[in-house]
């Protein structure tokens, strides 16, 4: 099996997983107590209006027919109307996804830029003071949930040293750039608007860091462990006996094999961030999809729940495929046959 065939097979399997998840979410969403039509229209709506909405949402049909209608519309690019925002769900997703995606990209970047060097330092200087400090930082990162980091960062940068913005994606006084990708950093650069770029970047720092810190701890700890293992291998001793420089040994012989498990974890953490950003988005008034996802669950907005879950599922599947591809590149011993 060549690489192309391997990835075609992975795409095929991913499509099956996607539909499997859609069935599970479709059924689970209907187990939440309460009538979605009554919740959507409020306590004062007439019974006739509630019944009419139930008809519109096909809630009186069997669950099999409801799922059939959902799939049929999905192929037409129609995710239905959100009973929570009263807008097409697709409009909601297009509005909220870029904000969360940009935030997660920032967090992912911070996770790699801080987590890996921290792990490398720790692994390289094992059992030294550097290692101890790095391990302490990693441990704090892992054991403290993101929402607590959000509050701690707000305490530091909103109260003690009020130097960073703590709410929304950009300053309300600035005009947003023309919408192209929905990512403010990209759109502002495309427009050549560096003021908005700088402002949007500053707004990303605190929420990005709050989401990234637990993952930074994870990545640092894993990198340290793997690097330590690799440094104990015979071929590293062999390289040392050849008087290769420390830098060469670290970058050419140690880091590459040590980073394979880390890459897998980075991929998974990256995907997890998308769904786990809810509380951080709430704390930093971030208009993202994670917050929307929880609100639609509370409001039993069936279309909103399914759409959000499927977007996150798709994100997971894509990230998994990218991770597999990167691991394939990093480790020649793994073949597509494996």
């Amino acid at each position, binding site marked *: 099996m060549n690489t192309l065939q391997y990835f075609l097979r992975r795409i095929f399997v991913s499509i099956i997983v996607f539909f499997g998840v859609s069935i599970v979410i479709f059924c689970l969403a209907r187990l*939440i*107590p*309460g*009538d979605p039509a*009554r*919740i959507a*229209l*409020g*306590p*004062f*709506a*007439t019974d*006739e*209006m509630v019944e*009419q909405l139930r008809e*519109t949402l096909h809630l009186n049909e069997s669950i099999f027919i409801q799922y059939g209608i959902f799939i049929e519309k999905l192929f037409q690019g129609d995710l239905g109307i959100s009973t*929570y*925002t*009263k*807008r097409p769900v697709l409009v*909601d997703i297009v*509005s*909220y996804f870029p904000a969360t995606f940009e935030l997660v990209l920032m967090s992912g970047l911070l996770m790699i830029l801080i987590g890996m060097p921290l792990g490398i330092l720790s692994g390289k200087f094992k059992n030294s003071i550097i290692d101890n400090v790095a391990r302490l930082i990693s441990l704090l990162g892992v054991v403290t949930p993101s929402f607590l980091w959000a*509050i701690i960062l*707000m305490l530091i940068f*909103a*109260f003690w040293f*009020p*130097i*960073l*913005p*703590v*709410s929304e994606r950009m*300053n*309300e*006084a*600035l005009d947003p750039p023309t919408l192209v990708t929905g990512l403010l950093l990209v759109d502002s650069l495309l427009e050549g608007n560096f*003021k908005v770029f*700088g*402002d949007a970047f*500053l707004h990303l720092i605190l929420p990005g860091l709050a989401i990234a810190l637990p993952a930074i701890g994870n990545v640092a700890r894993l990198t340290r462990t793997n690097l330590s293992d690799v440094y104990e291998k015979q071929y590293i001793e062999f390289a040392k006996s050849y008087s290769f420089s420390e830098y060469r040994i670290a970058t050419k012989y140690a880091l590459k094999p040590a980073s394979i498990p880390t890459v897998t974890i980075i991929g998974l953490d990256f995907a997890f961030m998308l769904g786990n950003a809810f509380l951080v988005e*709430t*704390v*930093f*008034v971030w*208009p993202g999809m994670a*917050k*929307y996802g929880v*609100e639609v669950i*509370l*409001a*039993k907005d069936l279309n909103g729940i399914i759409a959000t879950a499927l977007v996150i599922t798709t994100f997971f599947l894509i990230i998994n495929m990218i991770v597999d591809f990167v691991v394939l590149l990093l480790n020649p011993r793994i073949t597509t046959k494996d």
Partner: protein
Amino acid sequence: MKKISFFKTILLSLIISVLSFSFVSAKTVIRTDEAAIGEADPAKFSDNIDSVIIFNVYDALVDEGKNGSGLKPLLSTGWEYPDPNTLNVSLKSGVKFHSGNTLDADDVVYSFNRLMDMGQGFSFLFGSVESVTALDASTVQFKTTEPFAPLVASLMRLAIVDKDDVQANTVDGNYGDNGDYGEAYLLSTSAGTGAYKLSEHDPNVKTVLVKNDDYFQGHNAKAPDEVIIKYSVEAATIKALLLRGEHEISSMWLPNEVLAALSKEDSVDLVKINRPGSWMNKLNNRRAPFDDVHCRRAIQLAYDYDALYQSFAITDDLVAGQKASGALIAGVLGYDPNKAPIERDIEKAKAEQAKCKYNPSDYTLDLAWIAEVPYEEPWALQLQANAMELGYDATVTGLPWAKFTEQVSSWENTPHATVVSVLANVPDPDALMYAQFHSSRGGTWMSAEWANDPELDALLEKGRTETNEAERIKIYQAANQVMIDNAITLFITDFVGFQPISKNVSNSDTISTQQQYGTMGRNLSFREMAVN
């Protein structure tokens, strides 16, 4: 060294850019927040934040006067009853919608039909209205099936939309010839006459209002040019933003510990607001043992109102509640501020319990609170403790709202007592009492009592049809007394809210606007506020 200088330069430029991005615009802004989700369609609004938006963007025929001074004309010049079943309302001339169109009677008829056909929001207030017709361009006639005294007060909730503008933007929909009744259009656009126009509306994120410079009543000279309403913001974030001067008016839902912390800050004032609403522990009147009036009286007398009141304390001086004296609350017609609050008397409670036909030890009471509102739990636990004093066993459950609204649809499944808050939608006691306590209204979250008291029913029916205000006050005060005597429900406290506001907007204009209106959502009238 060069590297260090480079990083210093970067850090310095970041800090400078943050500081320079602080609000530099010449326009004045008020930023506030509320729980999601904001509804901008005048035929669908029903909640507190919806009301704030609609009162600022749309106008109704009548308005609430400040300081409980009754109703006053807004888009109308006055009204009269040619007969008990007919109300004629005359319109002001020359009032312009945001589109520039002029208001006339057709707009009122269209707005009413739109509200009733869509069957949501406050349409339930107009169930007695048989027809609405335009007698001429400036007179509208409302015909009711029976004399209906609360009609004028209810008109506060009939927001008038621009018929021509909405019809021009109607697409296919569920309402026959009326298509979607402009439902999609009014999701993010305003078609009213109000002091502000809707500039941006994302129901899950924020709503932005901009000043309507052509507003027929004008604005305070220092009224904000723009209003930003943000949804579902964490209390810690609101506190940070208020202290940084990046937020002007908080919602009234901040936890007491945050309010206590803010009360010590020089840059923030706490404004006390009496609101027309109350917390109740709704007793199920049809389920044993509370289908016996003596059992209800016993639990009413056993409930520890002092302990409940203390649970609302923010600091030693600030208490976010007021002891209740029945169903009539401040801001509503008939409320008597001198009426004594209900008090606990455990000896009388035990004496009443002895008269009850049920033995308390045979019953396990199921007491509920709404799971989404965790601070309700202590009030349910307090009732549990007091019920045990009478010999009952009792369980306390946090019920998700959706489950509660489903359970309450049958009296057999409705808990023995449930903590619920109720707000007056209009300053008329009918809207508050009939919907909750008339025997025909059981089965909604508001009427979890399943009240079934013929004496109370008779008074509530009489109050609806009596058009003399002085008589109505007597009727509703009598109904209030029946409520207490027959222990229809348990009153926890009347609402008192504390709203933190930044010094940027703390002045007599803003504070009097916040304090002097009673109807839900009316007190954030931005055109009357001032930015310092």
